[in-house]
């Protein structure tokens, strides 16, 4: 009896994250190919209403772990409940988004289950012999490795934007199974004291369809407002190069690059960014790249689909006006 392709449906504040829709959609395709059910796992408090949405994106079955003890993510509690569930149900594969949560959870879970884990994968090959083969960037995107996991369940974390979310089908239904959350007391050694979320109307860097980043050429912290103005016209996220972060103009968490966030939006606009390898590693997989830079020899132009050689303080506000016209059309 096939045990299924399982997807960890990550929610934040009661909303399913975009990466999970991408995974459910791709998981549906894989499940159809391998002839297995697609199973969603939802963890949190008061999250039962999310099962319907998981079904609409392709899940045949939903396991629901709903408990006040699971309201906020902690490594121990999530590892505890998932280990029990995966041991009992023995799925073929368990896929998670490569989010901050899963980056912490997946290795802990893999080690407890005693299995291999393919982290931060960007593609999945369905293969008769190997079942699933995972492609992942290594050497900060300078090469790819193809990884076979020799243990079951196949565990992998998937980079955001690697797959496209399909349109939900409101007629789809799933069987919902509620699972009691049993957490081992030994798993509660780390105490969560506080969660401080930055209130923003902009999308997360890794999830945004458009990312607008500033580099050394921004010259000062307050100048980022011109990027924000442009971003808000098209619902984009604002990022930065390491140079801008190191200059203290913008917080670390907005850094795009090999030691910051790796992004792959549909459109990436680099403003006053020279294009160091460190930065290219973080955005080189974007679909379309625009570079705005005073220096015609800046390496960023070697990877940009469209470049404007010019003063960003002149060009960016003009672009904001042009984008406004497009949006209003």
């Amino acid at each position: 009896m096939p045990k299924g392709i399982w997807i960890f449906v990550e929610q934040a504040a009661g909303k399913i994250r975009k990466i999970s829709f991408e995974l459910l959609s791709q998981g549906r395709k894989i499940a159809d190919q391998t002839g297995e059910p697609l199973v969603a796992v939802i963890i949190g408090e008061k999250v039962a209403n999310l099962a319907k949405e998981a079904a609409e994106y392709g899940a045949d079955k939903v396991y629901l772990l709903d408990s006040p003890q699971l309201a906020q993510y902690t490594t121990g509690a999530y590892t505890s409940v998932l280990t029990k569930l995966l041991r009992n149900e023995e799925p073929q594969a368990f896929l998670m988004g490569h989010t901050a949560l899963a980056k912490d959870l997946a290795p802990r879970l893999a080690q407890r289950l005693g299995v291999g884990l393919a982290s931060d994968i960007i593609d999945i090959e369905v293969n008769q012999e190997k079942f699933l083969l995972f492609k992942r960037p290594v050497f900060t995107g300078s090469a790819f490795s193809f990884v076979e996991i020799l243990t079951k369940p196949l565990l992998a974390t998937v980079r955001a934007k690697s797959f496209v979310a399909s349109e939900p089908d409101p007629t789809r239904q799933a069987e919902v199974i509620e699972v009691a959350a049993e957490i081992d007391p030994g798993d509660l050694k780390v105490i969560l004291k506080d969660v401080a979320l930055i209130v923003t109307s902009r999308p997360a860097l890794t999830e945004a369809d458009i990312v607008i980043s500033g580099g050394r050429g921004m010259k000062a912290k307050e100048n980022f407002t011109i990027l924000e103005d442009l971003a808000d016209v098209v619902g984009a996220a604002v990022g930065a190069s390491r140079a801008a972060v190191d200059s203290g103009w913008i917080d670390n968490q907005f850094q795009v690059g090999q030691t910051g966030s790796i992004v792959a939006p549909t459109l990436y606009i680099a403003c006053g960014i020279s294009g160091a390898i460190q930065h290219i590693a973080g955005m080189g997989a974007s679909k379309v790249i625009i570079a705005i830079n005073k220096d015609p020899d800046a390496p960023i132009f070697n990877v940009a689909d469209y470049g404007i050689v010019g003063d960003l303080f002149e060009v960016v506000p003009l672009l904001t006006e042009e984008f406004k016209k497009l949006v209003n059309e």
Partner: protein
Amino acid sequence: MNIVVLMKQTVDTEAKIVLNSDGKIDTNGVTLVINPLDEYAIEEALRIKERLGGEVTIVTLGGDQATAAVRSALAMGADKAVQINDPALGEVDEGMAATILAKAVQTLPHDIVLAGVMDTDNGSAQVAVRMAEKMELPSISSVTKLDIDESLATAKRVIDGGLATLEVTLPAVITVVQGINEVRYPSVAGIMKAKKKPLTVLKLSDLGLDASNLAVQAKVLKFTLPIPRQGGKKLPGEPAEAASLLARLLREEAKVL
């Protein structure tokens, strides 16, 4: 405070990656460095030692060439190092590395174990957390601020969209991200002193392990190189013309707006 830092030697991120005739990553002639994220862990360890006293021990898994990275860490100010170097090891996956490192760390006094959240070669962000699980230690990942008060560690962890504050009673494993501190450069005196600092080189048998009992679970079948991105067109004209042209091209040609 007994502080252990897990360190890995990695390829300089500016290096050009090529494949050799076996289809493996060719590291010949490539500059090797301390994994940049581990440098933050070493720096954090030194700062904890400067505040609270104690000893910083570097633990690394790597071949002969990794000794250079160990010496660099000692030059930064770490007190001693343990290097597991065994030619019997072939391909090592994250689970194997965690098993080996856990054995090595268990032989050392450890109140806190620090490591970079990932290494820039493999980028998997698994080994330190797996090692914590193997040692039945709690862990906090992706830490951007760490305070230690006697045996209580308070950490700010980067989560999607913000920060979480967590507390744990030591011993614990902490992985750090860029931004937690500014890494110092080794001084000339530090480099000189590093040559005399104790470096213990261990084989798997010294840790009660046998390569034949360590199995790869995540097997790399092949490597490929990305197709380099081609530069496109620079748009001509005055800024206003170029901006207008760009907006039109994004809609009509690239179809992304």
